[in-house]
């Protein structure tokens, strides 16, 4: 339990008859970078808001740093959060916005705001009001605000929204640095799954409020492994050929496609054998599932995305 930073048990939030979050049970361990994946309206933000105390759960339990109930509420100050768009005072500078949060947390360290600004790449913001900030700068300041007080758990909801590729890379590096050097546990949601896969150590996939899949980075890598993808006209005949060649791990994914997950170096032999057996091939190539495809498969296909 000591090792678990965040744990929820059947956490539910209902709005009328609609279950925004439906009996979500998950654990985030110390040092994890937890990738929280889900479509728009899947319940990611509501879940994060409940953990941060912005939204009251309808039922279920939240445990923070091994404590529940009133004890866990007192530990919320150890969470830094950026939920949805960053909340900023538009007529103030970045440093003023940071100073306010520092005051709220009782931090009076000189140069602390500058340190945070430097960490999120806003050292040059100067006296510019946040109203004049670009979307990316606002997002970075939002992350900076979440970092005030050096939280043990950082919750980032779509933190790379609106960032350019360089900004995305900087956020990625910042999260990795905080995780590796300061041991900060991070829960991060993002639509850019490819980007998430570069940093997350474990994943939770949420759909229609329910946590439908939990898996580690290695498990996801195994799911998205390389394979030979064969487009053909007679899959039944092809299966017999593959069986005859001693290929055991394959899957007929639709009426014109077979995916072979082993002996990837034998694609040439498979090609010849299938042609000799009278199977008409449209294409044969080595491919790999990306996380996005896997996500779409798990959540019910591309038509729902």
């Amino acid at each position, binding site marked *: 339990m000591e090792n678990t930073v965040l744990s929820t048990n059947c956490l539910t939030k209902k709005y009328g008859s609609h279950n925004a979050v439906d009996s979500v049970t998950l654990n985030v361990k110390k040092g994890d970078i937890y990738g929280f994946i889900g479509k728009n309206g899947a319940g990611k933000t509501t879940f994060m808001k409940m953990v941060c105390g912005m939204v009251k759960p309808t039922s279920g339990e939240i445990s923070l740093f091994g404590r529940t109930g009133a004890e866990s509420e007192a530990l919320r100050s150890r969470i830094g*959060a950026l939920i949805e768009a960053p909340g900023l005072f538009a007529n103030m500078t970045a440093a003023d916005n940071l100073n306010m949060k520092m005051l709220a947390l009782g931090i009076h360290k000189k140069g602390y705001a500058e340190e945070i600004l430097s960490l999120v790449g806003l050292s040059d913001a100067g006296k510019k009001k946040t109203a004049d900030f670009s979307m990316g700068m606002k997002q970075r300041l939002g992350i900076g605000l979440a970092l005030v007080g050096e939280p043990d758990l950082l919750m980032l909801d779509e933190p790379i929204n609106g960032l350019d590729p360089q900004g995305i890379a900087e956020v990625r590096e910042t999260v990795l640095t905080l995780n590796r050097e300061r041991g900060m546990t991070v829960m991060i949601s993002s639509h850019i799954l490819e980007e998430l896969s570069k940093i997350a150590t474990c994943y939770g996939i949420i759909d229609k409020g329910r946590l439908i899949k939990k898996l580690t980075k290695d498990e996801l890598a195994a799911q998205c492994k390389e394979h030979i993808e064969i487009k053909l006209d007679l899959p039944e005949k092809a299966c017999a050929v593959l069986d005859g060649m001693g290929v055991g791990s394959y899957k007929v994914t639709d009426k014109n496609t077979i995916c072979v997950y082993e002996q990837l170096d034998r694609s040439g032999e498979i090609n010849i054998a299938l042609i000799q057996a009278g199977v008409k091939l449209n294409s044969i190539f080595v491919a790999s599932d990306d996380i996005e495809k896997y996500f779409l498969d798990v959540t019910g296909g591309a038509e729902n995305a």
Partner: protein
Amino acid sequence: MLNILRMQLYWMRRSLKTWLIIILCVVFSAVMTYMTYALTDMLKDEENRKQFDAAISETEDVGLSIGVQMDPTQIEEFNDETAYKYESLVSNVFNSGIIELMTVIFAVTVAVAEFKNGYVKNLVCAMKKRRYLPVTKAIAVSLFVIVMVIASALSVIATAMIISAVKDGGFAESGSVSALLKVIGMQSILHIAVSLFCMTVMTVTKSTVISVIFGVCSATNVIGSALSVVDSLIERFFSKEVVLESYIVSTQIMNCSADMDKDFVVKAVIIAVCFAAVAIAGSVLAVGKRDIK
């Protein structure tokens, strides 16, 4: 909670709207003091005084009260040898409702600022109890309302001194310091109460329009006029004579004069405290129960 209060004060100190409203209070106080002088000067003429009496009675019929508040008997007694006391001039400006209007606008604009721009999302984890937010906000608003009342009073005195100096005396002179402090103190309490009440209206309704309309109606005594209708209905159907208007803060602000007696002070303080307590409780409940969007 002290940390959250520090943050609220920091923000209000840094906010342009705070200083803009304080400057407006100072300017309006100065303008109204000058208008009092101009009116007094004009009413020394018999014909003008008759027209003024007629205008005053028309305004009272409508029930609106914002503007220079002058007691006609005070004008009648006024002659070249007499002069206003500073506390009377200060009292007149507060009675007009203009400072009340400014403090109400201030309260409404700051009431839910961090909810509107989403900054509250940065704070909610940092706060042990969510109720700290409306409580600290109420304290910070109260402190700035006191600053506004003092700044307005100083503006009135400074303007009166300048007019007296330019016109070679005769307009205003220093009176009782304790009476002046009593007016400032009493008006501070009453303005805090009405500001907190409007802040709560804003917090509960989340509507700037409704809150500002409520504040304007309060400052212009429209609420008082509406209550007098209720009074007459109660009298008609229950044969009971009540004056609900006398139990609202705005009426106390209008009636708080330099020579207020002990009974008035006690009644006004009780009404102000009740309004402030209900307002803070309302804000705490609204902020505590609601989800943060």
